[in-house]
């Protein structure tokens, strides 16, 4: 699995993805690790098929007993179907996930991990001195959905917003926005159901100071490409299946 450090300060952000051993018929995903001196948070830790390479990659950055937090942006299997495995591996961990999905996510098995339900208006995750904001992003695409913002690293992890599907050897950052647009268009038009929800989210995010916009699929956006993405998404008509 490819590991790319995308922020280094008093804490780190690492993007994990582009797993070479991934079965061809499952969707590629990006997982994110936030590492503080004694704790480790996995953002959208991934599907069951990805558990072994994901755990192996995390062990380059933290021991198992310091993996103290998981975050699931929403309920999809590519986000969190590995939960039952993390549940057996971690002795002292919490799952921060939408309150609305608790009864559903427990189907993946969640007996030793403590479920921290996130209310609809969001919250925070405190990892030692780092405070991450949980930003509501409902209906983009899931009805219960959150993104994570790190004001210090200026990274916004956006789940399925900003997603695109790439070849396994694609770079991790967008380097030509115009060319990248066509890889995102159908996904966003088809999967995002609500133009209203999209507008509300964009209004909220435009007020945030973001250096990197980090989706769960495809390349990340940095610098001016963040604004380009927001402008593009703002102009896009979504919810095309009805």
């Amino acid at each position: 699995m490819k590991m790319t450090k995308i922020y280094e300060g008093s804490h780190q952000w690492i993007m994990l993805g582009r797993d070479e051993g991934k079965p061809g018929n499952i969707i590629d995903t990006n997982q994110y690790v936030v590492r503080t001196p004694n704790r480790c948070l996995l953002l959208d830790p991934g599907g069951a098929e990805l558990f072994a390479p994901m755990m192996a990659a995390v062990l380059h950055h933290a021991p198992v007993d310091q993996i103290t937090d998981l975050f699931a942006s929403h309920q999809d299997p590519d986000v969190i179907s590995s939960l039952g495995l993390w549940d057996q591996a971690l002795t002292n961990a919490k799952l921060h996930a939408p309150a609305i999905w608790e009864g559903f996510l427990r189907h993946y098995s969640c007996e030793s991990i403590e479920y921290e339900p996130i209310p609809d208006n969001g919250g925070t995750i405190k990892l030692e001195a780092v405070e991450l904001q949980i930003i509501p992003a409902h209906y983009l695409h899931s009805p219960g959905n959150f993104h994570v913002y790190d004001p210090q690293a200026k990274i916004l992890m956006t789940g399925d917003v900003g997603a695109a599907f790439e070849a396994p050897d694609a770079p991790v950052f967008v380097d030509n926005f115009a060319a990248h647009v066509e890889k995102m268009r159908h996904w966003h038009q088809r999967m995002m159901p609500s133009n209203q929800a999209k507008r509300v989210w964009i209004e909220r995010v435009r007020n945030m100071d973001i250096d990197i916009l980090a989706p769960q699929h495809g390349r990340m956006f940095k610098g001016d490409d963040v604004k380009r993405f927001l402008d593009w998404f703002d102009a896009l008509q979504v919810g095309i299946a009805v």
Partner: protein
Amino acid sequence: MTNQTKSQFIAVASITSELSAVMVVAKEISLAAANAKAIAFRAGDKAKGFQPITDFINELAKETIELVTNINIYALVLYRLTVDEFQKTAAFNKFELAAKMAEDAVYAKSMEGPVDHARLSMQDCQRQFKRDVSQLLGQLEAVMHHARAARVIAANSRIEASQAGEYLQSLQAVAESVDKAAHTIHDNVQRCRIALSIYRNS
């Protein structure tokens, strides 16, 4: 899923389907016993020897139904245990794979704990499964014992029926149906025992 786990699922699931057939047949024996009792009552002295047999058959049918009900409940527990074992085995395999993939990682050693814990959980499940299989085999043996007893009673019934004059045919039909039912029960349960017995010592 390994072949072993798959065949365990199938073995345990097949018990439920075999036993539902046994339940139907046991209820038929009960009905046959009730019929026989009515006929024996009408036959009066001619079928005097038949009357206590009908009570015995009825009792046997009730006990068989109770045994099978308990076995069904136990089979469900066993099925859940099989699912649990499958999940624990899957976890152990994935943890081992992660540990292998992380051989050169800084914190590779920290995976030893989860791997060991997963191995122990998996082995615990396997041991529990074998214990439960043994118990279930014992319960199935009890049903077979009842079925054998029913066949003996059916044989005695034929003898008594031969003394019942014009009621001979009716009572022999009852004896025949009890024998056939008991034979079916015996065979169904025997199949369950054969399917399960390979897991007792595997």
